[in-house]
């Protein structure tokens, strides 16, 4: 019922919002237009793909993401209970083990993915930025793993920090990035670096989905201008 008591009629011609019209203006319309053009839902969640993706090489990307997922989950548990927990609790030690092996899986799969994309020249046909974001992810992941090693609060942490300091100091960044400062390394490891890696992985996935999987090398590409 409406406020004046009259029955409300539903206009059956009104439907869910459609694509933004070309003549619509404003920031929102502009962003929506860009998103709809770059990554329509059919590309974000595709139900068909080129037959040539039936190769083991294409598995390494998704399993890298899966390892990252479990890496983050186990890291969240470790962070929640505090940095000393896993040294004194068998449950904590098990979660540390899952974190440790997730890291190993993550790097193994990521390196295989990287090599797969290198030998397939995955940067072709406008995919250079996708490759570059991948390399940045790898680099930041190495830094994230390093900060993880030096915050373990055990012998490894001490020895790695002591040795790494010389390399970092030699670059002039020792005062800014002090491997011997547990507080700084902890903050970087549990907060800034994982967020950086995760956001870049999301961007990488969007790039892959937006552009699609690159065609095989020497597969004749015929486009009528």
């Amino acid at each position, binding site marked *: 019922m409406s406020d004046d008591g009259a029955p409300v009629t539903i206009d059956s011609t009104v439907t869910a919002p459609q694509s933004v019209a070309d003549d619509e203006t404003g920031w929102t319309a502009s962003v929506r237009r860009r998103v709809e053009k770059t990554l329509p839902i059919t590309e974000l969640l595709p139900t068909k793909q080129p037959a040539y993706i039936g190769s083991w090489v294409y598995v390494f990307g998704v399993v890298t993401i899966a390892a990252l997922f479990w890496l983050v989950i186990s890291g969240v548990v470790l962070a929640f209970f505090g940095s000393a927990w896993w040294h004194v609790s068998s449950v904590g030690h098990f979660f540390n*083990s899952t974190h440790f092996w997730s890291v190993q899986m993550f790097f193994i799969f990521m390196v295989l993915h990287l090599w797969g994309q290198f030998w397939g020249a995955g940067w*072709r046909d406008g995919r*250079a930025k996708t490759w570059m974001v991948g390399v940045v992810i790898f680099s930041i992941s190495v830094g994230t793993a390093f900060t993880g090693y030096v915050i373990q609060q055990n012998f490894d942490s001490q020895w790695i920090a002591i040795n790494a300091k010389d390399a970092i100091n030699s670059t002039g960044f020792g005062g800014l990035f002090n491997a011997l400062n547990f507080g700084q390394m902890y903050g970087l490891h549990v907060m800034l670096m994982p967020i950086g890696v995760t956001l870049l992985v999301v961007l990488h996935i969007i790039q892959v989905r937006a552009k699609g999987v690159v065609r095989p090398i020497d597969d004749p590409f015929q486009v009528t201008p």
Partner: protein
Amino acid sequence: MKASKVDKKTYYRGIRMIPYDLLKEVTIAMIGVLAVVLVLSAVLSSPDVPSVTLQSWSKANPVDFLTTASGELSGSTVVAGYGPPYNSGSGSAQSWGPLAPQQWAGVHIPINAPNDFVLQPLTQATAGDAELASALTSYQAASSDQQQKWLTNYTTALGTATVASDGTVTVPAGDFGPVSVLMDRMLTLARSGGLDALLLTSDHFYQTDFSRALLFLDDGGYIADLAAQQKLIGSDWGVMNETGRYPGSAWLWLYTMWYQIPPFNSSTGFLGISTANTDLAVVGVMLLLTVLLLLVPVIPGLRDIPRWIPIHRLIWRRHYAEMRHAAAQKGP
């Protein structure tokens, strides 16, 4: 028209499309990886060798501890003369030609080895210990030459010191001045665990910076001996190793490799690169290689390697077989 500018329908023209379930693939990957991780965790666990403390060091190897402490007091240790970011020394400052970023950056984590590692902790421990207070006063009142003479005599005598079963160190008699009292109290303080706490002390209640304690440990030989037993030193590719039989940072193999080969491990060097600036040189090489990896798509030659070495024939072998089959059916 460039391939990067066409729509997907055009881009995939002639390519056979197959049904694909993205969410199913992701779910299977999640479950599969979790299963592997859980099995490895349950069967192999993970390494956790306890950390070394100044207390455990002073108990396990008191002579090494005293040698290091007296070295810190005389300013003759590596950290005492390290250079930036710790102090104005130059013992560990690295440069390559005119490039000296370590010196350019300057001192940001000030470390005064005699004061921070020995005199300040002992001063904080003088309460109720008149003999220590007196020894500190005598030491600080003496000339620098006199201090060095006492310390040299003491360090020399440590070479023939004996260690009793209770850990007491007996140093042959000599002209040590107040140094023998200072070192005796340093050992007592360390063995009680007090020095671990005192090296963390700052103006704040909460402590998270272990720089001073780790640098003091680094100056001794004890932690390096333990690392050597675990195959963690540089010549054993230590940077990428882990304690025990666990995989370490295998992804650092290339970084670690440079430390094993000339000119990086050579004292004479080549092109200005030697053991005197190994770290700077290795970091520089790795930065260069990372930039090259980043820019592979736009570097002619580098981006053509996958075409020259046809590993892609293995990756897409079924696709190429399909193409050949289709071409054969089509005929000439």
